[in-house]
């Protein structure tokens, strides 16, 4: 579990995130959503330690990050896996070498043991056939899966994903979302996902935080998000007429008022 309290962060006298508090649960997909510039990436970078918050506290399983010494922070970092928006794969290394890198750096395994572990995780993300390829030779979806494999190879307790579906088609996005959700439950990880993909929100959003102009505007889950009366949230999620209609249809389904013909105009008048 990760607990954040009153996090504030700014750059050059501009406050980017203000007074953000939340609890990210273990074994669940915790989503941070918001429009571009709302502060969600800065919040995520504060969570993983790339930025130091100006104010506030971040606690990993009850232990305050700011009170940790250098060695404790290093130890914590080995329990963190991160999937970057662009995958951040090492260009000069093959897929196998990329996934093996954390094992090479931090484990005392023999080469055969490392290879076995790499095969296990690549099998888990369905990428065994691409082991000897370089990042430039694989597709965007495959790169994301390699990134996930590298992030989980050391059995992390915390998994951070920064816009994991960025640049992917809807079908591949769904595959990535499902994979992240399955791994979260299977390994009982605390997963935090930064996204503005509503498909992800509706598919895997166990706990959702909506950021608006640096503040936490709303918090809930994927069912509550449909019924929320928060105007800013609704304006963000249901920005298109298509999604507005889909929301109305869904609400009618939930209320049991939808008929076979699905005549929306008639039903909405009712």
């Amino acid at each position: 579990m990760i607990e954040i309290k009153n996090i504030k962060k700014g750059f050059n006298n501009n406050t980017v995130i203000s007074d953000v508090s939340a609890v990210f649960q273990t074994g669940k997909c915790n989503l941070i959503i918001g429009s571009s510039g709302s502060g969600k990436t800065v919040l995520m970078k504060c969570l993983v330690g790339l930025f130091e918050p100006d104010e506030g506290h971040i606690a990993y399983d009850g232990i305050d990050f700011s009170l940790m010494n250098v060695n404790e922070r290093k130890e914590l970092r080995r329990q963190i896996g991160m999937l970057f928006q662009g995958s951040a794969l090492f260009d000069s290394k093959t897929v196998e070498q990329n996934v093996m890198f954390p094992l090479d750096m931090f484990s005392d395994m023999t080469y055969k043991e490392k290879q076995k572990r790499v095969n296990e995780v690549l099998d888990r993300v369905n990428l065994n056939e691409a082991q000897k390829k370089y990042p430039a030779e694989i597709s965007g979806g495959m790169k994301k899966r390699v990134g996930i494999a590298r992030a989980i190879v050391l059995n992390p307790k915390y998994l951070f994903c920064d816009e994991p579906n960025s640049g992917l088609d809807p079908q591949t996005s769904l595959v990535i979302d499902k994979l992240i959700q399955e791994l979260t439950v299977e390994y009982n990880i605390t997963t935090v996902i930064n996204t503005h993909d509503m498909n992800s929100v509706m598919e895997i959003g166990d706990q959702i935080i909506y950021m608006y102009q640096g503040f936490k505007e709303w918090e809930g889950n994927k069912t509550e998000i449909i019924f929320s009366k928060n105007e800013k949230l609704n304006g963000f999620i249901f920005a298109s007429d298509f999604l507005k209609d889909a929301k109305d249809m869904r609400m009618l389904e939930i209320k049991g008022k939808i008929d076979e013909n699905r005549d929306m105009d008639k039903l909405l008048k009712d």
Partner: protein
Amino acid sequence: MNFFTHFGKFILMISGMFTLPENWKMYWKELMQQCIEIGVRSLGIVSIISAFIGAVSTVQTAYQLISPIIPKATIAQIVRDTIILEFAPTLTCVVLAGVVGSKIASELGNMRVSEQIDALEIMGINTKAYLVLPKILAAFIVVPMLVIYSGVISILGGRFAGSMANILSTETFDKGLLINFTPYNVTFSLIKAYTFSFIISGISAYYGYNVKGGALEIGQASTKAVVTSCIAILLADYALASLLL
């Protein structure tokens, strides 16, 4: 940003390199890889430039020594000292600033922009120690070797050109090489080589490591790295010559 800001950030980068490696074997591997990248991959260009510089030095020195009372062996003496004192260390390192410096800056810049450096940081790796220090150490190891190699090839190039152009025979050239040879010149050449190797690798790594932006900024960082390295090499060249000769 002014010079002092850059200098301060440079010192912070250098001081941040000195931590215990997370894994000695991986650091050693990276060091060896950089030695190959910086040293072995530069052999071709250094060979070509050195051979021609030596040849041109011999021909042009012969052109200028028109007095018949000056023995031909003097040409070899002048070419030897010019190569050892200046051409081998300075010219080779200016070329390496372009070849190696731009490579280091663009590699690190690309890693910064594509978040590979962030990925390493999140894994708990000190990226200054893992990415920058091996490059600087590799430069310390291989650049002096390249300078010595350049000196040898230049002198051989001059010897070959001298005999091909009927300026002086190889025997006369070899005799001239031994006249008034000052071993300190080799020491001075190596002092220059070590100084320039730090300049090339350190400045290039600084610009690459601190890139902010995209492809345009990577290119700009690479150009700045080369230009700044060249200027710094020439300034250091003058300073060392004034202080040590």
